[in-house]
């Protein structure tokens, strides 16, 4: 075993050019795998953040006749029992309304929140670009699109009509931009009490919203919440069920990322295997004489397994370094006008370790073919051919 290792090391050292080429081949494979993997993971996390990161991921609504949750304090408490899986629990009192501005009317959605709690989900505070968040009763914030459409500024009073025919006037204290134009166009954000009074809900709310720490487990967490709720008329929805197309897009992206990685792996595997196989042919004289001198077939095969192992380890280390270099230059050169990277890179050390280990394992697997050839090599063939 030690002799095989020593011989393997010497073979690698003496064929420096070839060794460097193979190590380079493996490391580029690892680097590409690491780069593509990190890029796609970053893209996915970024996509999840922008699409569902600022919205309710698990939502509790009522199936009762008025569609309202009566004892919402209890529901809120029951949902928060699932911390830390469940984060940012908040209630909302929602209802449709019509806003009547100088020249026209527009359909809007009144959303009454406990602003402090909902801010964690919707990042309202961050979205306010003029004025401040509504704090007192009859104060509201409206979105950028609606403000442009209706010509509303902070400090204006707006007239809003509810479906029951009632109307109210609210003070606009802030203008927000939550990054989604359909929200900016339709949501009128206010505090809970204003919405409840305007919509005639009494002390009820229309939904309990929450986010979860593992977004892709929203459905599982949702199911667990169902069991914990004492009010059986409540129903629990999750973003995965409500956004099937987004989910399948994300899944498609993951699958294509795996495919790319598998093909890179196969290419690396074949590359190492063929170079090592050639090196068996190159070293067949040496192997022949070693066998004539009594080296056992197993030991002779081990020479190539050790070569594969050493090449794999070297290639993996260099590949990880290259990969980091690529990621670094990507974040430096592929940037938006404001200097932020086009795709924020997400470094997953587990993934990097796994990809390095894959390279080592594949180099070893690749060495099995030449190991087999060398084990079968008959010294007489070599000696006869001179």
């Amino acid at each position, binding site marked *: 075993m030690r002799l095989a290792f020593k011989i393997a090391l010497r073979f690698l050292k003496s064929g420096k050019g070839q060794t460097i080429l193979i190590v380079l081949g493996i490391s580029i494979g690892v680097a590409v795998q690491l780069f593509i993997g990190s890029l796609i993971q970053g893209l996915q996390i970024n996509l999840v953040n922008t699409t569902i990161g600022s919205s309710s991921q698990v939502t509790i609504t009522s199936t009762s006749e008025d569609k309202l949750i009566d004892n919402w304090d209890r529901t809120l408490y029951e949902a928060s029992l699932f911390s830390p899986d469940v984060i940012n629990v908040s209630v909302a009192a929602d209802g449709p309304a019509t806003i009547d501005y100088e020249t026209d009317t527009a359909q809007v959605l009144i959303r009454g929140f406990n602003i402090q709690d909902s801010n964690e989900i919707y990042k309202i505070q961050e979205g306010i670009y003029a004025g401040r968040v509504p704090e007192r009763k009859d104060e509201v914030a409206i979105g950028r699109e609606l403000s442009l459409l209706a010509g509303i500024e902070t400090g204006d009073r707006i007239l809003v009509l509810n479906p029951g025919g009632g109307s109210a006037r609210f003070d606009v204290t802030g203008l927000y931009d939550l990054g989604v134009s359909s929200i900016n166009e339709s949501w009128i954000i206010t505090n809970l009490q204003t919405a409840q009074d305007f919509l005639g809900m009494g002390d009820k709310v229309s939904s309990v919203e929450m986010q979860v720490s593992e977004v892709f487990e929203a459905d599982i967490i949702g199911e667990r919440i169902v069991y914990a709720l004492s009010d059986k008329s409540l129903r629990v929805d999750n973003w995965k069920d409500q956004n099937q197309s987004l989910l399948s897009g994300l899944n498609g992206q993951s699958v294509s990322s795996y495919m790319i990685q598998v093909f890179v792996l196969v290419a690396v595997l074949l590359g190492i295997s063929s170079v090592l196989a050639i090196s068996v042919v190159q070293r067949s004289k040496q192997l022949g004489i070693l066998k004539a001198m*009594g080296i056992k077939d197993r030991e002779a095969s081990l020479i190539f397994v050790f070569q594969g192992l050493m090449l794999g380890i070297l290639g993996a280390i260099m590949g990880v370094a290259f990969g980091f270099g690529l990621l670094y230059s990507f974040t430096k050169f592929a940037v938006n006008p404001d200097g932020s990277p086009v795709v924020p890179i997400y470094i997953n050390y587990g993934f990097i370790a796994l990809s390095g280990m894959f390279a080592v394992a594949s180099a070893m697997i690749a060495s099995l073919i030449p190991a087999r050839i060398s084990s079968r090599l008959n010294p007489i063939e070599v000696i006869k051919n001179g």
Partner: protein
Amino acid sequence: MADIVRLEEIDKFYGEKIKTQVLFDVNLTFEENSFNSIIGQSGSGKSTLLNIVGTLDKPTNGRVYINDRRTDTMNPVQLADLRNRTMGFIFQFHYLLPEFTAKENVLMPSRIMNYQVTTEINQWADELMDLTGLTKVKNNMANAMSGGQQQRTAIARALINKPSIVLADEPTGNLDSDTSENIYGLLRDINKEYGTTFIIITHDQRIAEKTDRIVEIKDGRINLDVKR
């Protein structure tokens, strides 16, 4: 004296579809401590015979005994072990490992037997290299030596495990006549000093005449067997 090598009714065929018979019913023995030569034209089957003795090749029919142990029925692991412990090979080409130094090459069969090189083995390697006149070049890489030095390294390598038999296939085929003379002198000295049995293929008549026994192979049969 006892026979160290015994060949009984050896036939050897080559080829799968068209079979060519190379050896015909060969019966041959070699004594311990003897210095033998095998001569014959190229294609006569002498190398095949030597390879069968060396367990590198197997006879199609017949039995091969080394030290009274039958070898043609052994498995590859047993054969490898037998070759490593009891045989030394010297070929027309030196077949040194170019990745290693002269001394590392000499020590290789010993490392195959047991990776650790003891002080005695190390001293023995130095002694062999001294005997073969390689002391100055022992740390040279194998391909940084002259042809004669390389072949002498191969000889030292063949002797490191103190084999009871050394098989040499035209060991000086590539060397000039002066160097050849030297090398045969060396082999003879080793034979006398350590009692190693030598079986040497040569087509050099002068060298054959210096050996204790000449076996001539012709068309796969023993044509002549002269002991002196």
